[in-house]
C-alpha cells in the first residue's frame, strides 16, 4: 500500500536498546529526504520499566507524531498490552511469539496483522546479547516498508561505529536477518512510502538545536548541574570543548551554575546555563543578581512535570508563570518558548543578542518533549545567527571621561566595560547602586535606577516579534498555544481543516515582555477561541488575560506527563463546538 506517511513504534524495557533503535529508524528516513518526527518515552530508572519510541515519517511535512500506529514492534509482552490499542485498523505488530503467547491479543484485535519474528531464536543461535533484538527488528521493519536495506545498514554502521567494528558488523548482520526473515520467509510488505526528493536531512532534538544555536552565537562558557531533561545540552557542550574552545563546567550545584555564568558574562564572554524546574528554582536568586548588576545571561529551562522532583523523564508546560515572575523584585527580562528545534536554533541566537544588547536575563523554555524528540531538517542556515554584543566596551580608548557604568541613558542601556580594560573599573553591585555602581539607598537614586532598568522595556517590546498566526485568515475557530505544542496543534489544525472546519492557530514563542496592543488587535471575539496547553491551570490564558483582559474560555489541557497527540486536540475542538 502506497502511503504518504507512516507511524512506527518500538517498545520494550529500559535497557533493551529502544532509544538506539528508534534513532536509527528515524535517521534512515531523514537521510533519504523524508520528513521525520519522533518521540521517546522512558521511566526515570536506569534499568527496567517500560520504554517506547515512536517515529512518524512523511513524504510531506509532518509536525508531530500521531495517535495511530501503523507498525508496532513489541520486544516484550507488555508493549503489546500497552500499545496494541494504538495500532491502526489493519496495522501490524511485529513480535516474537516464541517469547509470549499472543492468542488472547489476537482475539482482541482480529484486524491486526501479527508478524511473528523469532528474535530469541536468532539471538540464541548466534549467541549474541539480548540487546541485538533491536537490530533484528529494524531489519524486519525496513522489510515491511519495502525500504532499502542499504539505508538501514548505512545508519547502523554510522551509529555503532562509535563502539567497535565488531559491534557494527554484528548489528548489520542482525538487521539483515530480520530483513530476510520478512522478505523471504513471510514474503510480506505492509506499506510503501511515496518517493521524496533525496536530500540528506539532519535529525535534531530541541536540546541539540539550542546547543547548536549557542555554539554559533559564540557561547564560550557553559555551566550546568546534570538534570533531566536538560542533560543532553551538557553532554553536547562537553563533547566540543576543544573543537570550539568552549569551557563546560559541571558545577557543584545549580546555584553555583548561575553564579559562574554571571561571573563569566561579567568578565566578557557569552555564557549560558541549562536546567529543569528544580534547578531553575534554585537559580532564582541568581537571576535577580543578573538583573541588578545588568549582566547578560541566557538560561535554558527544560520543563518536566512538577512540583518538586515530579516526573523527571516526562513532559509538561507547568513553569510559564513562574519563569515570567521568577526571583524577588521587579526587572525586565525575556522569556521565550520555541515551538520546534528549528525555532530553538534561531531563538537561541536571538537570546544571546537580546541578553547582551539589553543586559538582562533571557530564559528559553523547552520541555522534555521538545528537548529530547527529533525533527528532521534540511540543514540550519546558521548564517542567520549573527552576533551583536550591544554596548560592550573592550578597549580603554573608547572610554572618554569618568566612566559611569550605570549611566541613566535614554533607553536605559548603559555601555559596559569588561575587567581588564584600563579606566573602566566599576562595581557590578547586587545592592541598589548609583550610576557608578556604588551602593546607594537614597530614595531619589532608587527611583532613577528602577526607572532606568525599566526604560529598556520600551524598545524591547517593540522589537519582539508578535505571536505567529498559522492557517486561514478567515478562520472561525482559533487555537491559541505556546512552545512545544506547536507541532501537535498544526497537525490538529490540518485534520480539522480537512473536515471543512475553518481553523487557524496563534502560536506564542515570546511570552515576556508581552505586547498587549498587538495581541488585543489579533483577538477576534466572534471566533471560537480555544487555548491548548500542556498543563493544568492554563497559564498562557492567564497571561493573555492579565495583559489584554480577554478571557479565553475554551480550554484543552493535558497534564498527564505526556505531550498532546494531534487527534486529541482535534477531537477536543470538535467537542467544544
Amino acid at each position: 500500500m502506497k502511503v504518504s506517511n507512516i507511524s512506527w513504534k518500538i517498545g520494550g524495557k529500559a535497557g533493551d536498546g529502544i532509544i538506539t533503535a528508534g534513532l536509527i529508524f528515524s535517521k534512515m528516513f531523514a537521510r533519504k529526504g523524508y520528513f521525520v518526527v519522533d518521540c521517546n518515552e522512558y521511566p526515570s530508572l536506569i534499568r527496567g520499566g517500560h520504554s517506547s519510541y515512536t517515529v512518524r515519517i512523511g513524504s510531506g511535512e509532518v509536525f508531530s507524531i500521531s495517535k495511530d500506529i501503523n507498525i508496532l514492534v513489541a520486544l516484550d509482552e507488555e508493549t503489546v498490552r500497552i500499545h496494541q490499542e494504538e495500532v491502526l485498523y489493519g496495522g501490524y505488530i511485529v513480535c516474537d511469539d516464541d517469547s509470549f503467547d499472543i492468542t488472547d491479543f489476537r482475539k482482541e484485535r482480529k484486524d491486526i496483522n501479527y508478524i511473528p519474528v523469532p528474535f530469541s531464536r536468532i539471538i540464541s543461535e548466534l549467541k549474541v546479547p539480548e540487546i541485538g533484538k533491536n537490530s533484528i527488528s529494524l531489519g524486519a521493519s525496513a522489510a515491511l516498508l519495502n525500504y532499502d536495506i542499504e539505508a538501514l545498514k548505512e545508519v547502523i554502521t554510522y551509529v555503532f561505529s562509535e563502539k567497535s567494528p565488531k559491534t557494527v558488523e554484528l548489528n548489520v548482520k542482525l538487521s539483515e536477518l530480520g530483513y530476510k526473515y520478512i522478505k523471504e520467509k513471510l514474503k510480506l510488505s505492509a506499506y510503501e512510502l511515496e518517493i521524496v526528493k533525496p536530500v540528506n536531512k539532519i535529525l535534531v532534538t530541541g536540546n541539540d538545536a539550542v546547543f547548536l544555536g549557542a555554539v554559533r552565537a559564540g557561547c564560550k562558557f557553559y555551566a550546568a548541574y546534570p538534570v533531566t531533561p536538560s542533560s543532553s545540552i551538557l553532554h553536547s557542550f562537553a563533547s566540543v570543548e576543544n573543537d570550539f574552545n568552549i569551557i563546560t563546567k559541571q558545577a557543584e550545584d545549580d546555584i553555583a551554575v548561575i553564579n559562574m555564568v554571571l561571573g563569566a558574562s561579567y568578565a566578557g564572554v557569552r555564557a549560558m546555563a541549562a536546567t529543569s524546574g528544580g534547578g531553575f528554582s534554585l537559580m532564582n536568586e541568581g537571576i535577580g543578581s543578573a538583573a541588578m548588576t545588568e549582566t547578560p545571561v541566557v538560561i535554558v529551562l527544560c520543563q518536566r512535570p512538577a512540583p518538586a522532583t515530579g516526573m523527571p523523564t516526562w513532559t509538561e508546560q507547568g513553569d510559564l508563570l513562574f519563569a515570567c515572575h521568577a526571583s524577588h523584585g521587579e526587572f525586565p527580562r525575556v522569556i521565550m518558548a520555541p515551538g520546534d528545534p528549528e525555532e530553538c536554533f534561531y531563538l537561541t541566537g536571538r537570546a544571546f543578542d537580546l541578553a547582551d544588547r539589553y543586559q538582562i536575563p533571557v530564559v528559553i523554555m523547552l520541555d522534555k518533549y521538545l528537548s529530547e524528540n527529533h525533527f528532521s531538517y534540511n540543514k540550519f542556515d546558521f548564517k542567520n545567527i549573527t552576533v551583536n554584543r550591544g554596548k560592550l566596551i573592550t578597549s580603554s580608548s573608547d572610554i572618554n571621561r569618568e566612566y559611569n557604568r550605570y549611566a541613566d541613558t535614554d533607553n536605559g542601556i548603559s555601555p559596559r566595560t569588561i575587567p581588564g580594560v584600563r579606566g573602566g573599573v566599576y562595581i557590578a553591585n547586587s545592592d541598589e547602586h548609583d550610576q557608578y555602581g556604588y551602593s546607594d539607598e537614597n530614595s531619589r537614586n532608587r527611583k532613577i535606577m528602577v526607572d532606568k532598568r525599566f526604560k529598556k522595556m520600551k524598545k524591547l517590546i517593540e522589537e519582539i516579534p508578535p505571536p505567529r498566526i498559522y492557517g486561514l485568515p478567515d478562520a472561525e475557530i482559533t487555537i491559541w498555544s505556546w512552545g512545544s505544542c506547536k507541532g501537535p496543534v498544526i497537525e490538529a489544525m490540518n485534520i480539522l481543516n480537512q473536515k471543512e472546519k475553518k481553523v487557524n492557530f496563534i502560536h506564542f514563542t515570546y511570552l515576556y515582555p508581552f505586547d498587549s496592543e498587538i495581541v488585543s488587535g489579533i483577538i477576534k471575539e466572534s471566533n471560537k477561541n480555544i487555548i491548548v496547553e500542556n498543563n493544568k491551570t492554563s497559564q498562557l490564558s492567564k497571561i493573555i488575560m492579565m495583559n489584554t483582559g480577554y478571557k479565553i474560555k475554551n480550554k484543552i489541557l493535558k497534564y498527564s506527563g505526556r505531550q498532546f497527540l494531534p487527534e486529541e486536540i482535534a477531537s477536543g475542538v470538535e467537542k467544544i463546538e
Partner: protein
Amino acid sequence: MNKSEDMSRKKKYNLTLRDFNTDRKPTWCPGCGNYGIWKSLKKAFVNLNLEPHEILIVYGAGCAGNSANFIKTYAFHALHGRALPVATGAKLANHKLNVLVMGGDGDGTSTGLNHFIHTCRRNINITYLLHNNRIFGLTSGHASPTSARGLKTKSTPSGVIEEPLNPVLLALAAGASFVAKGYAGDPLYLSEIIKKAIKHKGFSFLDILQPCVTFNKQENYEFYRNKIYRLDEIQDYDISDLNDAINRSLEEERIPVGVFYKVDRPVYEDNLKQIERKPLVDQIIADIDINKLLNRYY
C-alpha cells in the same frame, strides 16, 4: 586588539595605596578589623605592582562584602554566599585577570560553604580572603558557624550549642593547595601573607582573624594579641606536610598565623586546552563555522 589587552601594558607610574581608594569612605565601625584588612590588601597590590584594572575582586554580602565600595578595582558585589562561583566564572572567562574573593565567615561558611569546599578541590588560581570575625556583623550580631561554643547572640540567647567550624582545617580537608591564617590587627604581616596567597599558583585560602568590636566583644584585639604566634618562627615547621598543617589547625590554646600549607597541584585552568593559547574573552565569536558540527546530526 585583545580584550585583555590593557593588562599587559607597561605600568604608567608608581602605584600608591591611594590608587586603590574609591571616593567612598569606609563605613565600618571605628576600630573594626576590616580597616586592617583593607590596608593590608591595598599594600599587597602596591607591592605586587598591580594596577586597579588588572584586578577583579568578587565580594560576598556582609560588613566584609561592603569593602566593594572602598577598594578601587574591578568589583562584583555578589549575593550573600555566592562570591566564589562568580569569581570562578570570571577567572575561567579571563584567566589573565588577578581574581580575589573577599567575604565574611557567615558568607563563606554558612550559606556559601558548598562553594568554598568545591573551590578548594578545584584548585582554580584565585585567592580567597575570609574576614572571620566569628559573627554575622551586618545583620547586627547573629551566631556564625565559626562562633565559639557558648556565644550568646540574638539568635542564640542560651549560647551556641554547635561545634564551631574550623575553616583552615576544612580547606585542608577539601584539598586546598595553599592555606594560611592572618590577623587583621597586624596589617603589615597580613599584607605579606596576602602577597604570598596572590602569588601562589592555584587556589589560595586565607582565614583572617578579624575583630568585630561591636558584636563579638570577647574576641577583641586584646584576646588575639595574647594567643597569636607566627608559624614561620617555628623552626622545623614544614609547610608541605599536610599532617603538620592539620595538627596546627587543631590547636586551641594558641593561634598560629602564617602559611599552614602550600603544595603545587595541577591548577584547574592549566588543564583546559581551550584556553592554552588565549583566554576565552579574547576569542573571536563573530562568525563561528558550525558546518562540521552539523554533520554529526545526519
